[in-house]
């Protein structure tokens, strides 16, 4: 018992209040909205290649529990080797930033935090110098780096919400409408064949058709679906017989100039492995599986020409540079590396965050170490969200 042997002093009049409260406290239970059981996705620390340059979202600052984590957006313009801070203004971004590239433009979604329940959206078409707000989503974006997709040239948007619903906005972004829910997609013939459990990614095909992805309960099946002919059709790669008994999760999925690039996690525990998959003209090419040795994916990024780079919980980096190529281990990552930004020709930048300092390290192909090339001090507004 703690110190006080107390005199509370709820007055005598409290007793009737207790009786009243007892009579009205039991509100009827309302059914909770169906939510998808999403498998763990790589974090929102990621990088993205667009015509304007390479973008990277990195969490910086302090404790998320105290709302002192602030997500920052950086760009390395296409004509530069230097990164610069271009975090969009106007909204507290403690909930995380979700990026979608659409040609030279970048659409950024703010995952809500604290008392905010909807997701503001903002867009830049000049490399982050000027931003303009887009119509917000009326719910929380899913916590997945591929929860938002923009169709180049058209302004059409696709958003995967935390509850498993996918919404789309027509060009002009005047209104958001429901495209499909995870439950509805799982009930289609293609969804049933997969046993779709959740949705983890949304993107467009080069022709502009929405593509959605998620984990399947049916072993050996990659849950990638595209809309066509009024229904959803399986669009994932056929996997080798060695993976026939493995649970497959689509960890990342993004559109490329030629098609799409996906990261597929196969199996669980110490037997888990990772494959990159590239599609072009409807044909998929797979990388050899990379054994994760019991570790998990913490960050995954796509670069130009189908390159992909990952970080695992073992703080190891791997890169694959073109369709069908195998994973190459990177030298031990600099401390605090949040994400990798793969560049052309097998190069990569490692973005390491510590408090308000971002340190950029660069790796050259076949190198053995990382070279520090830039330090950016970010004025973290500690306490401004609490």
């Amino acid at each position: 018992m703690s110190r006080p042997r107390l005199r509370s002093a709820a007055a005598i009049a409290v007793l009737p209040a207790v009786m009243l409260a007892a009579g009205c406290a039991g509100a009827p239970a309302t059914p909770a909205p169906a939510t998808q059981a999403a498998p763990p996705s790589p974090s929102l620390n990621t990088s993205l290649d667009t015509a304007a340059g390479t973008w990277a979202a990195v969490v910086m600052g302090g404790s998320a529990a105290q709302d002192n984590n602030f997500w920052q957006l950086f760009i390395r313009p296409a004509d530069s080797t230097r990164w610069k801070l271009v975090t969009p203004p106007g909204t507290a971004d403690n909930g995380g930033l979700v990026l979608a590239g659409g040609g030279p433009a970048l659409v950024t979604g703010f995952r809500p935090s604290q008392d905010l329940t909807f997701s503001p959206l903002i867009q830049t078409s000049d490399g982050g110098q000027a931003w303009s707000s887009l119509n917000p989503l009326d719910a929380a974006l899913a916590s997945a780096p591929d929860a938002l997709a923009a169709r180049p040239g058209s302004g059409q948007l696709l958003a995967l919400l935390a509850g498993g619903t996918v919404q789309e906005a027509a060009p002009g972004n005047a209104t958001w409408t429901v495209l499909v829910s995870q439950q509805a997609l799982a009930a289609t013939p293609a969804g049933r064949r997969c046993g779709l459990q959740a949705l983890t990614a949304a993107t467009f095909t080069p022709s502009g058709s929405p593509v959605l992805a998620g984990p399947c309960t049916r072993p050996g099946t990659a849950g990638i679906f595209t809309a066509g002919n009024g229904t959803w059709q399986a669009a994932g790669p056929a996997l080798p017989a060695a993976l026939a008994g493995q649970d497959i999760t689509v960890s990342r999925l993004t559109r490329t100039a030629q098609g799409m690039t996906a990261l597929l996690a196969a199996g669980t525990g110490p037997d888990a492995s990772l494959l990159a998959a590239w599609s072009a003209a409807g044909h998929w090419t797979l990388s050899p599986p990379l054994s994760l040795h019991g570790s998990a994916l913490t960050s995954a990024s796509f670069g130009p020409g189908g390159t992909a780079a990952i970080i695992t919980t073992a703080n190891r980096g791997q890169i694959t540079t073109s369709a069908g190529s195998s994973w190459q281990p990177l030298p031990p990552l600099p401390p605090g590396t949040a994400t990798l930004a793969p560049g052309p020709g097998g190069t990569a930048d490692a973005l390491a965050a510590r408090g308000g300092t971002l340190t950029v390290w660069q790796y050259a192909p076949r190198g053995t170490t990382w070279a520090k090339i830039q330090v950016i001090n970010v004025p973290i507004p500690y306490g401004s969200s609490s």
Partner: protein
Amino acid sequence: MPGMNSGLDISNPAVVAAFKAALVHQGLIALFIFGLLGLVWITIRAGLPTAAAGGAGTAATAAAEPAWRRLLRIGFGLLWVFDGILQAQPKMAVGLPSQVIEPTATASPGWVQHLVNVGGTTWSYHPMQAGASAVWIQVGIGIWLLVAARGPLSRLAGLVSVGWGLVVWVFGEAFGGIFAPGLTWLFGAPGAVLIYAVAGALIALPERAWRSRRLGRLITAGTGAFLLGMAVLQAWPGRGFWQGTSHGQPGTLAGMTSTMAQTRQPGFLAAWVNAFTTFDEAHGFAVNLFVVAALVVTGTAFLSGRPRLIRPVLIGFGVLCLADWVLIEDLGFLGGLGTDPNSMIPMVLLAAAGYLALAPAPAPAAAAEPAGSPAVAAGWRDRLRIAAAPRTVASASIGSVAAVGAIGVIILGAAPMAAAQASPVADTILAQAIDGSSAPLDSPAAPFSLTDQHGRDITLASLRGKVVLLTFLDPVCTSDCPLEAQEFRQAGQLLGADDRRVELVAIVANPVDYQLGYTQAFDRQEGLDDVPNWLYLTGSPAQLAPVWRGYGIAAQIAAAGSMILHSEVAYVIDSRGRLRQEMGFDPGPGTAATKSSFAAELTDAAQQLLRQS
């Protein structure tokens, strides 16, 4: 626990000053009550000397109060007065629910927490009234017990002590922690105030019960059974009392005492408690063995009901309780939020009263009624007749008059709390404690022409004829603005039928996310989309900037992922378009109590203007 914590700093100077002022005002009224009653009594006695003489004569005819009852009445009367004085400590008004009640209930089951939360929420909504009522109710009960030695008024004091004691036991002590793990007699089980209630019940017994030795046996047997039960609990394996340390950490008892030693208190006292902690850590088994043995011996002796056996054991038990009170309970009332001296003093009083009650009270003398004392012979109904009132007052003893004064003091404390509790709205003192008092204004409000959330053009002039509550909100703000919107929404509900004459207006305070989609999303988020007199106005940055300037609002873009920095202020505009009040509108901790308090402040301001118009 939701609602219990107002979120304010417990030393908030505005609240402390208001609490002190309330106590001073009510203290003066209490003095006035006693003074007035005394004056009336003296005056009537002077006018009716025969009645006064008869009243004095009644004392000689009644049975003498037995020693055990006098001990309980005076002992617990003093304890109630002392507890009332402790309730007057400056931090009590805000600190009691969050710093005392909530931690006490935390280890208890959910239903206990829920129940306790009801009382704590009531307190946190009305901290002034609740704090003051606790002071005056307890002081009143204490005085009442002290001055009313016999008769119905004395018994009634015992019953009131039971009633209030149970209220405190449930809401203040979370049932004394009996449903929580770690329960131990050493630390106050089953709750000090439950012993107050038991003592009150004994005081309330009719006089015929005083003369029976059976009462003494019942009290000692009950005490003995309780102590034996506590001994079993203390000896129960697996509860951590047999170990001085466990995995390098203090054991259960040493952990409790080391926590107590951190309380703000005189250094020598902390040193004693720390020394005991060290001793217990080194000899935990021996300490617990001694305690269990002492409880078994004391309990067995009390259960026997034999005075010769009980007397020496009682002395030893008193010494044990004193040691426990100092070394383990750490006196219980220090640190600025102590509410009573914990359980050991009441425990000793009860045990001693049981021992004394084993000797029967002397039978009342069969004295003849004094002549010429009709008031004595008259029944209660007769004495309450208006015509008999002067004679009744004149024949009353000074103790009875003081008891009536004490009842007045209790009512003085309970009535404002009861009135406040009837309102579900928190006091405006909480809002004022956060942002200070509002500033009166009388100047034309800056005009604006903006678009509401439905796309309609709205100007200030178009709102003429209505009182306008105006603030500035960022639709994508993650912390304060949603709270402020809820305060406006609550204000609209509190206005009731008056809300048709009041417009709740917010203007966007964000130069980036100002589009209609954002005001509409914000309204849906806050449940404001169906509030008919709610307007969330926006416009282009070029339209908004002069409005912000006109109302002295800063809305600045802050870098690196933070939200817009903007002024948090609310204005009250009268039906002629004139600014009448400016309120600080930082919502502070945003608890249920503070939100309700701001809503009440807005409502008061609007209704004040409505009354004037």
